[in-house]
């Protein structure tokens, strides 16, 4: 459905995204994840045809975004980071305007607008001026705009920002009701949202993809390693040198009197580490095996890359 190939975008001499490639198949719900400035919004803007990449190509349904922009845009509903709403219009007039822009036939316009209003629970404010609405309601108007005309593809840039908890739950329900008939790409910083909504996550950091897997696969691929946090009373260095002898230990970080050990997951290995520390006589105070959840995977994947790039953004 969507095929992104070697996408690169430079703003001046700043690289926002760097040879990004991925595919999204029909009916999939994909979450874009990444720290601030990773390039999520930039990638989305390029897919929607809002701007051109420096190099690379995007195909939607076999059509190149830059050769058939109008056809491609017809298939996409897009919610940008800042909801694109006109303050001096009423919600319902704005949505009618959007449906004309999107070429919804006149006969079905009213029902298209009504269904978008219903999906985003805007019934109570439909006659109000958009400039007088709260931020969350503006966000919902922006979302209703993206849903108008029932596009096959929805690209939602941080759709739940500014929504209240009830609306966040509504949003999740909405996305799961759209699942199957629509292909959805959404970006977020909120990990539970990805867990609740998405079939697959694409983690972007510094303009490159660091992971693109289903949630289960991601947990699996990371489960080969485990992290152990150890607190000792003295002689950290000695403990470290002892532990580093154990087979399977990949990485040890000293943090005050703490050791963060990363190693391949095996009970023998963990046992050996424990033995080594006790034998080193540095006074074991705490020994904790940290489970690998999504949040950790995220932090690990995104921080690894950062340090490998010299720690500068």
């Amino acid at each position, binding site marked *: 459905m969507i095929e992104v190939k070697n996408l690169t975008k430079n703003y001046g001499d700043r690289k926002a995204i760097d040879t990004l490639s991925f595919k999204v198949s029909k009916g999939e719900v994909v979450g874009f994840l990444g720290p601030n400035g990773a390039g999520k919004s930039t990638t989305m803007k390029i897919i*929607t*045809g*809002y*701007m*051109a990449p420096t190099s690379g190509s995007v195909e939607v349904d076999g059509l190149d975004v830059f050769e058939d922009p*109008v*056809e491609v*845009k*017809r298939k*996409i509903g*897009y919610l*940008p980071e*800042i909801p*694109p*709403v*006109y*303050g*001096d*219009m009423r919600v319902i007039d704005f949505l009618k*305007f*959007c449906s*004309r*822009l*999107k*070429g919804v036939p*006149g006969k079905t316009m009213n029902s298209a607008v009504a269904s978008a209003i219903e999906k985003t629970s805007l019934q109570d404010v439909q006659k109000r001026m958009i400039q007088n609405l709260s931020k969350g309601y503006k966000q919902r108007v922006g979302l209703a*705009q993206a849903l108008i005309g029932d596009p096959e593809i929805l690209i939602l840039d941080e759709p739940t920002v500014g929504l209240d908890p009830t609306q966040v739950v509504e949003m999740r329900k909405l996305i799961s009701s759209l699942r199957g008939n629509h292909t959805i790409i959404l970006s977020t910083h909120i990990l539970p949202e990805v867990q609740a909504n998405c079939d697959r996550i694409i983690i972007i950091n510094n303009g490159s993809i660091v992971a693109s897997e289903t949630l289960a696969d991601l947990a699996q691929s990371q489960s080969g390693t485990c992290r152990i946090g150890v607190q000792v009373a003295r002689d950290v260095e000695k403990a470290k040198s002892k532990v580093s002898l154990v087979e399977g230990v990949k990485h040890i970080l000293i943090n005050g009197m703490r050791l963060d050990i990363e190693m391949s997951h095996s009970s023998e290995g963990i046992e050996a580490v424990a033995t080594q520390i006790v034998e080193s006589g540095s006074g074991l105070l705490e020994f904790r095996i940290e489970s690998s959840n999504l949040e950790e995977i995220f932090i690990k994947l995104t921080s690894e890359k950062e340090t490998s790039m010299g720690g500068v953004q």
Partner: protein
Amino acid sequence: MRAMFAIAWKDFRSLVSSPIFFVISGLFCCLLSFTYIRQIFDFARRSMVLAHQGQGVNIHMSVFASHLSLVNLILLLAIPVFTMRALAEEKKMRTYDLLLTSPITATQISFGKFLAVFMSGMVLLLIAAIYPLGTALFADFSWGPLISSFIGLALLMGIYIAIGLFASSVTSSVILAAFLGMVLILSFWFIGQGAGFSDDPVLSAFFEHVSVGQQFVSFLQGTLKLTAVVYMLSAIALFVFLTQRVVESSRWR
């Protein structure tokens, strides 16, 4: 087409309901009423004097022409204010994202925006037309030159709008768009003034030809010349085209 008219209608509504439109059309009415009534009385007095001497006077050249020149002068300053928000504000408020990701072309956006301001400008021209129409109740005059003058004025306004739109397309600051629009429109007027300074007859003829003022005079005189209409329409097309290029190119930045 429908999308283009949707943009035109939306912008037209938001423009004519904005306070700035009320202020400008209010000032416009006051100024025109004041000068028009003075000119009519002046004209009545003179025509009486001249009628004693057995001469006729032409109401078109002595009243309408100066009325329309004043309208033109006001449009010169008012149109950039009408066009300033057209694209600059879309960019600033990020609603430009909506236009650029909708299944419409840059041409439709540019023409829609042009139509919107043109319709608002027509409101001003309708106000300006009330004065000669009112005069028709108690005076007899030939309609030809008046109609041709209004066609000329509408075309001239079209040029101002296209220029103002172009100014609005290159910046995201509304104030800068208005200022730039005014400067460009004034420079456009003064291109033709080069004619007076040139000795070379060829050059002078050229300047006279590209002078928007000269072209407008021919409309005022009641001669609806095809070349003048074509000149005006091409100037409009040129600036709408430039706007379209800028809108299109925003994808490449």
